[in-house]
């Protein structure tokens, strides 16, 4: 009887616990769907790029490549969600600001020649600084003025792209430097796209951060009970500003990749709707959107699953503007399935389904 009880509980906890299984199941569903629709989807070939270097090509590679920015953002979004119980919807706009600042430093006053005027590292550091400033601004509104995160970030969400245009006086600087281009493309002789490696570095960094500091404990405590955290000597405000600053940093890194891919910037289109994808990644990772406990690996996997979905949709000739409709539908389904009310009803249904079985066995 006990054993049966336990197995039943495990079966049920499949839906309530075990976070990692949610994105994994979604991934599996997508893989199976693509296998049935077109097995060619998974083919990876070794081709040559325009520079004549051998590179890997194929949908899987492009998912790993294009999913990088999203995965990096998912790191920040997970922390923001956990600590503040809200989401940062200004991510795309902040990427635009960071990218614009990056180009401004790179190109200096000379916008058209394509020659870079200052070292890339300096430009990147400025870009990071700008990102962290934006994060700090959001964080300050949330932590010190106690504005709901989503509304606080709404400010940059609207103003961000305008600010980005303003930084470069609404002109579009071009960069034609091959070193700079390699951040969004390929390093000579390496067949995998660079963004993938940048993402790996970010994962390693966040792993180290979680492993060698108390970030995880602090963020979760603040997210669950701010008052208790304060009484235990934590300053919730600093933790909140901190996670928003990390989010800003993630945006800066994503901006580097994005701008390097394009070699220029388009203020109104760059990283459009990416915040939506990042929130989706966090939700898909099974992290509660109301804050508290989180699992980073789950979010990152979630991000790649989203990219998988995007690639699949593209493959079916869905317009990029219309993409958001499908993803929004996916979000709604996901959020509905993970809502406690629906979950409780599902559990009841499952229990009533499994009960006759156990009753039958008892007889």
């Amino acid at each position, binding site marked *: 009887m006990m054993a049966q009880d336990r197995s039943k*509980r495990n079966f049920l906890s499949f839906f309530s616990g075990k976070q990692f299984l949610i994105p994994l199941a979604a991934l599996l569903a997508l893989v199976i769907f693509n296998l049935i629709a077109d097995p060619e989807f998974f083919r990876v070939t070794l081709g040559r790029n325009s520079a004549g270097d051998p590179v890997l090509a194929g949908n899987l590679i492009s998912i790993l490549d294009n999913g990088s920015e999203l995965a990096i953002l998912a790191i920040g979004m997970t922390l923001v969600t956990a600590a503040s119980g809200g989401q940062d919807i200004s991510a795309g706009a902040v990427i635009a600001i960071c990218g614009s600042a990056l180009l401004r430093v790179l190109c200096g006053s000379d916008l058209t020649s394509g020659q870079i005027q200052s070292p890339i590292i300096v430009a990147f550091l400025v870009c990071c600084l700008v990102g962290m400033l934006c994060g700090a601004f959001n964080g300050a509104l949330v932590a010190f003025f106690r504005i709901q995160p989503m509304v606080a970030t709404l400010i940059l969400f609207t103003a961000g792209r305008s600010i980005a245009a303003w930084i470069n006086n609404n002109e579009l600087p071009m960069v034609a430097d091959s070193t700079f281009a390699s951040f969004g493309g390929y390093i000579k002789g390496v067949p995998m796209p660079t963004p993938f490696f940048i993402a790996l570095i970010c994962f390693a960094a966040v792993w180290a951060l979680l*492993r*060698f*500091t*108390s*970030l995880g*404990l*602090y963020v*979760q*405590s603040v997210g*669950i*009970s701010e*008052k*208790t*955290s*304060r*009484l*235990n*000597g*934590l*300053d919730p405000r600093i933790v909140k500003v901190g996670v928003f600053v990390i989010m800003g940093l993630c945006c800066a890194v994503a901006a580097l990749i994005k701008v390097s891919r394009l070699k220029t910037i388009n203020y109104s289109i760059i990283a459009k709707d990416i915040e939506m994808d990042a929130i989706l990644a966090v939700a898909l990772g099974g992290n509660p959107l109301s804050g*508290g*406990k989180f699992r980073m690996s789950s979010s990152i996997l979630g991000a790649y699953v989203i990219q998988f979905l995007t690639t699949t949709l593209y493959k079916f000739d869905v317009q990029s503007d219309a993409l958001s409709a499908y993803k929004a539908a996916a979000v709604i389904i996901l959020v509905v399935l993970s809502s406690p009310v629906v979950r*409780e009803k599902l*559990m009841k249904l499952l229990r009533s389904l499994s009960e006759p079985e156990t009753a039958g066995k008892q007889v």
Partner: protein
Amino acid sequence: MFVCGESQDVPALIFRGNYMKENSILEMRGISRSFLSVKALQNVDFTLCRGEIMALMGENGAGKSTLIKILTGVYTKDSGEIYLKGHSGPVEISSPQQAQELGISTVYQEIPLCPNLSVAENIYAGRHKKRLISWRKLNEKAEKLLSSLGIPASPVQPLGSCSVAVQQMIAIARAVDMECSILVLDEPTSSLDEQETERLFELMRQLRSKGTGIIFVTHFLDQVYDICDRVTVLRDGRLTGVYNVSDITRVQLVAEMLGRELDDSPVAAEAEDKAVGEVLYHGRNIHSSENIAPFELTVRKGEISGFAGLLGSGRSECVRAVFGADKGTDGNVVMNGKTVSIRKPSDAIKNGIAYLSEDRKAEGIIGELSVRENIILALQVKKGFFRPFSKSEAEGFADEYIRALGIKTASADTPVKELSGGNQQKVILARWLLTHPEYLILDEPTRGIDIGAKADIQRLVKKLADDGMSVTFISSELGEMLGICSRLFVMRDRKMVGQLSGRQLSEDNIMKTIAGGEHDGAGPQ
């Protein structure tokens, strides 16, 4: 699930199977309800007669609030039937609104009315008969009601600008005005002082004489004997028994609640003077933004001191100021002979002060985190951001304290919110003991937890003091304070008005000091 062995275990105190008794207005039969896997109520019967005050008692987790919430339509029941006078056959109560329509009105302890609406609206919200509202009529009616009950509030003022006690009175006024046949009071006295409680009791007696049945949920034994006619006791989601208050002694009642025999007073009073240790903490002019008069506090090593005073007299605010828990805390503090500045909790922790808040849910536990994480939290923060404990270290700490304090938990990985109140309190205590404080402040550590855990905590506090730790202990129960503390600071109207120790410690003396008798002047002014 048709195997139902429990029904035979229920004491034959209830008339089962019959139709409603002649003068009863409410009968709940065989009520069960479970939350996911937890059975909160199992086959509970409950009856209420016309014109009686029925106390509903039980430890935390006994199922009182679940029963109340089923009656008022907040929760749905899994099985069972509810009969009301004037309704043939069982009634279904599926929403608070419906409960109101059936004449059941409720005053909840922890859920206030709407602070943003005006007083008048709060009294009449949710019960407008017409779709449109006439503000003039509404205010006039409210005015009459408020003055007839002697509640000092204006109908147009926003409820949020009234004091908590007045808000509670307004909630009761609302319930009274609905001319309900059943009034449910869920721990209404916990935020009222004695006078206000007395006024509430007066109101309850009036209602009783008019024939209203009142269900009174409380933790205070005194109040049960003061005002109630009968008492229903629940334990672990089951009905233990229904008794006439005049037929049952306190010891019996406590024993019923606990399911075991206990001494009437768990801790014997202690008369002897302890050897006085050296001064650990001395603070002058301590103040915070919480409207307390600046006070002076001296704490000696190995001593248990306490803050006595009525609720709202500022005793919690004082210890919070010592710990730096509130904004604007400051004062001249000397600890172990060194001048220190304590302005926020982290300062206090650094200096070896620990504080257990009275609000366990909001300021004590971190519900979703595991017992282990809850235990190491304070020490981790003290140790620093860049030096996290390894998993094995954390496990070591957790296991040690789970054993030492006898915390009942499935494992160290269980989320702390799944523990019972007493065990949660022990987890928080473990958290603070782990930081090895020199000065431990406990604000109502024994409130709302079962008597077994209460005795455990009392014993622990004494042992800690014997080992040289200074403890400040606050409790609403004077008897408990007298049993534990060797010195008491007495508070009145947010001012420290006196200090009592040694032979001065007696209930009589404390009462006099609180009331402003001869003992004035002993404290700093």
